[in-house]
């Protein structure tokens, strides 16, 4: 290798660093604000560390809601949603990608309706459905509407279609049934898409607010965002940024740790699945 590409790639690296820095600024200040004394605005004391560092905001935020119960509830909500989604989107994704059947395009458009009309808008009717099913105030009520995912089905449809058809035909000649096809070819080769979808599913449900709020009323069942909202809906007092940032960190920390741990596997999954 000559020196020329090295210079170019160094410039690209520098550029990446600058952009990453811009992208990280809000996070850095979230962390800094969360350890700033509650009564100190950003214009008072130093821009970065204020007059002193304190954990008071975390203590206050922690005391405002039963966080452990909310953490547990969020985990149940997110995991219970994702596990079922993996199954349903694999099935539907394959059908739309590789099978021909009457009404396929119309059914696909109907499916996409879910992307077009978010559940939040159909609140009144969807609440009635959940209530008629006898699920009001349960974890089931929060999860049920997401067990079919237009987003996931569409993503896997696109991914499955990129997988060379010859692989499937070869496996079929070897006598593989549908489950073996999925296990040996489609799922491993689509792993990056599964990881991406899981990330989207986890983070969107971990962060969901209005739907869980409407279909539940017990503290035991409600997710973390309900706790966070207590720190945000402070119209009668004005915004208390330090407290808010501490609460945001409490909500986002588990996901961030998960992502950082998981993301190595993410790379490995690319490497091992790599279509050469």
């Amino acid at each position, binding site marked *: 290798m000559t020196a020329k590409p090295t210079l170019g790639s160094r410039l690209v*690296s520098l550029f*990446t660093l600058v*952009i*990453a820095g811009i*992208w*990280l600024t*809000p996070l850095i*200040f*979230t962390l800094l604000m969360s350890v700033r004394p509650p009564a100190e605005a*950003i*214009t008072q004391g130093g*821009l970065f560390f204020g007059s002193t560092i304190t954990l008071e905001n975390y203590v206050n935020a922690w005391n405002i809601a039963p966080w452990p119960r909310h953490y547990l509830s969020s985990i149940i909500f997110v995991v219970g949603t994702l596990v079922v989604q993996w199954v*349903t989107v694999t*099935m*539907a994704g394959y*059908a*739309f*990608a*590789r*099978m*021909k*059947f009457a009404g*396929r395009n119309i*059914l696909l458009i*109907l*499916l996409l*309706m*879910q*992307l*077009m*009309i978010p*559940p*939040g*808008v*159909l609140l009144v009717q969807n609440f009635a*459905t959940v209530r008629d099913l006898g699920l009001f105030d349960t974890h089931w009520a929060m999860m049920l509407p997401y*067990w079919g995912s237009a*987003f996931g089905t*569409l993503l896997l449809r*696109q991914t499955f*279609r990129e997988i060379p*058809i010859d692989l*499937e035909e070869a496996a*079929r000649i070897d006598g593989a049934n549908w489950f073996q096809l999925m296990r040996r070819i489609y799922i491993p080769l689509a792993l990056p898409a599964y990881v*991406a979808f899981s*990330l*989207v599913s986890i983070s969107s449900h971990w*962060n969901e607010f209005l739907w869980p709020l409407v279909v539940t009323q017990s503290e035991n069942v409600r997710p*973390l965002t309900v706790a*966070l909202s207590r720190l*945000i809906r402070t119209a009668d007092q004005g*915004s208390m*940024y330090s407290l808010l*940032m501490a609460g*945001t960190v409490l909500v986002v920390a588990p*996901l*961030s740790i998960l*992502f*950082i741990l998981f993301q190595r596997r993410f790379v490995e999954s*690319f490497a091992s699945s790599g279509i050469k």
Partner: protein
Amino acid sequence: MDAAVPVKNTRLRKPLLARLAPYLLIAPTFVIIFLFTLKPTVGAIHDSLFRPARLAQDPSVYVGLENYFDLFDPMHHIGGRFGRVLGNTILFGIFTVAIGVPLALMFAMLLNRRLRVMGFWRFSFVYPSLLPVIGAASIWAFIFADQVGLAAAVLRMLGWEDVNWLGNPNLVLWAIIIINVWSQTGYYMLFFLAGLQGIPRDLYEAADLDGASARQQFVYLTLPLLRRTTLFVLTIGFAFAFQTVDQLQALTDGGPGDRSNLILYFIYQNIGERRNWGYVNAMTILLAVLVLIVTVANFAFFERGGREHDR
């Protein structure tokens, strides 16, 4: 013959189970979609033709398409605002997607190299989409806050006037666009990254041997091979852009003077009055139609190109 069809038998010769198979595979998804999307959507179409009576126990009155016409009547209490809100929504959708999606592709290309501490790089672009929207919106509320915000503090340190980002009618929609681009780009980057990883390396090696420049490789190799990923990202990009709510609630309440109001938040503003439910349903249907048009246009453009490519 469509290249995507694995079984070459004609329909008549297929056993019953094989013919039912696709429907069985999509059944679980469609039960849910039916219950929580299709059924209430039909309900919303029905309700959009009615107007609730003054008393809750009285039956609603059938008004035909009048709710829809009222939405475009400038003298109407909702119609007088709807035009601007619709315009904002379209502008917002176009700009968040036009800025966010190319940026996401760029990030994906930047990270699709051998880098040390890859976890750090990925995290720094992806973390905004891990944040709860209300939390992320609050962070930006702090950044954009007049007088006591981060931007104000920095501008002042540099000796400049601070800017009332969210209170200035000409800046506010751009502030919301910036926030959306920041929070969504990481998402989209992941899909492009997955797409890039799926492109066989030998294609690039072959292109190198043929003496193709980096630009040529990008235009003739990368872009066409990312076609389906791009279709997917564009589709969800528009759908997500049209569903922006929490940012507005935490930051501007759609103001000043509706300059940052978007359809879904506008629906939310009016849903609290039971007697607006006819309009609310009509706006929901229009929103769905808007997303539908964009989606169908996307599919028409990309899928047709796709078939040509497959041949």
